[in-house]
């Protein structure tokens, strides 16, 4: 299950999508809206996405997980629109016969989501200003579009 949604994320969607009687370990990751960024007070967030491409890229990440760990139980959901403090923006679930793999694969899927899935965040500050977030230079590894595509 790979989905962009405007609804509240409960976690049940992704968990139910990966659970099964042969998977002894399930790892879930939730990203939530924090009340501050680098100390500056956040009022709320707005997420925009390019849904068909985002869902396609999520499925590609699941394919990568399948190749690396042999796991085919991966689910990802990302919410878009206006999100309040404390609300869940993203949930990733991975089920595995082995817990070590479940932890590693879930972390990997989340890392890749931030790299290649077309979703953008706009921070609306408590003082009323707003801006589209630029990724941290350190973590930003998208290639120059004039070179080889990812």
């Amino acid at each position, binding site marked *: 299950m790979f989905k962009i949604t405007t609804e509240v994320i409960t976690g049940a969607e992704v968990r139910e999508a990966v659970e099964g009687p042969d998977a002894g370990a399930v790892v879930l990751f939730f990203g939530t*809206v924090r009340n501050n960024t680098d100390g500056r007070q956040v009022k709320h967030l707005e997420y925009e996405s390019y849904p068909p491409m985002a869902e396609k890229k999520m499925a590609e990440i699941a394919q990568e997980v399948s190749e690396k760990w042999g796991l085919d139980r991966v689910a990802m959901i990302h919410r878009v629109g206006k999100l309040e403090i404390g609300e869940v923006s993203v949930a990733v679930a991975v089920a595995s016969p082995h817990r070590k793999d479940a932890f590693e694969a879930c972390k990997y899927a989340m890392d890749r989501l931030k790299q290649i899935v077309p979703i953008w*965040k706009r921070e609306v500050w408590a003082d009323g200003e707003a801006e589209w977030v630029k990724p941290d230079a350190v973590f930003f590894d998208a290639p120059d579009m004039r070179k080889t595509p990812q």
Partner: protein
Amino acid sequence: MNVTVKYFAVCHEMLDRSEEEMDLPDGATVRTILQRLEEEWPEIAEFYEVMQMAVNWEYATENTELTEGDEVALIPPVTGGCDV
């Protein structure tokens, strides 16, 4: 030929529209679209180092050739997930 071009986030904001149809000459590439946009918004060139392009939901290069009905998108640096 006609293609659809989509603008997201900061591109959407700067161009003040989220998508448009473009009538392009045969043999047009992603570069052709960028050249058109440079006429309206010269500063777009400053984004090239970090921006990506997509054609039909797949990352592309400026040399990717276009065909009738393609969906092209300007992809500013993605910042999905959580910020931690």
